[in-house]
């Protein structure tokens, strides 16, 4: 029965064409999603690059034309700066760096270059500082438990205090609290057991 066969064929081909269309539709949707993501990411990269250029220009002007290299980290919203003599751009306790970070964030937000806060790190100062204060705080927490007394840390800025509160919240035997007012606000570590 050639006619029947042909009808069956026709139905088959129609169904398969429908399936294909569906697939095509899906493919198309996937493609759209991909390009959207890409564009978003591209915007984010170009925004961060714009900020990075401002950071580079500003630091070069602060440090008398010192050679400066900037790297951007899109995922972490970070701009890291490398160079030789950048001490003055960091400042005492990272003060100048913090102010520069505030300014570039302000500029970035006004120009719609960024949608969240950018962290500025010069010569890995911030990274090393986090490591150092976490280590000291952990050591002091152990000491507080061992000696059964509260221990006060040095005054620190809010950002650094947060890092320590977070780090020490993993220890069950100590509790942290902040005392005094800015800029002398400091963390006190209380041991929970064996207070003499």
């Amino acid at each position, binding site marked *: 029965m050639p006619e029947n066969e042909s009808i069956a064929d026709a139905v088959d081909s129609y169904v398969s064409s429908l399936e294909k269309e569906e697939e095509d539709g899906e493919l198309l949707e996937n493609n759209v999603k991909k390009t959207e993501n890409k564009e978003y990411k591209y915007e984010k990269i170009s925004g961060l690059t714009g900020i990075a250029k*401002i950071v580079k*220009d*500003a630091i070069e*002007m*602060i*440090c*008398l034309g010192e050679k400066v290299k900037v790297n951007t980290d899109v995922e972490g919203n970070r701009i890291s700066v490398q160079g030789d003599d950048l001490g*003055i*751009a960091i*400042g005492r306790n990272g*003060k*100048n760096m913090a*102010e*520069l970070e*505030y*300014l570039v964030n*302000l*500029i970035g937000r*006004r*120009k719609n270059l960024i949608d969240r806060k950018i962290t500025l790190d010069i010569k890995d100062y911030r990274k090393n500082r986090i490591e150092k204060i976490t280590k000291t705080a952990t050591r002091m927490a152990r000491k507080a438990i061992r000696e059964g007394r509260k221990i006060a840390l040095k005054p620190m800025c809010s950002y650094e205090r947060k890092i320590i509160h977070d780090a020490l919240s993993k220890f069950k035997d100590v509790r942290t609290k902040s005392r005094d007012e800015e800029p002398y606000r400091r963390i006190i570590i209380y041991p929970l057991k064996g207070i003499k």
Partner: protein
Amino acid sequence: MKELLEYMVKELVDNPDNVEIEEEEEDEKTIIFKLKVAEDDLGKVIGKKGRTANALRIIMRAASAKRGKSSIVKIID
């Protein structure tokens, strides 16, 4: 140093063409920067509770320390 202040302020304001900076030497080590911006932009360079003006001054202090000088930033209104 003037370029640095000009650069940062021009990025901050809406009317960069109206930014004017006058440089004045008070003595050998001190430079006064008189900053003029459009009236609408005054708030932008000063910021809430002077936060932005403070940041600008700290950056300028850092730059002048590098050059063995001190600087004063005056915002003229």
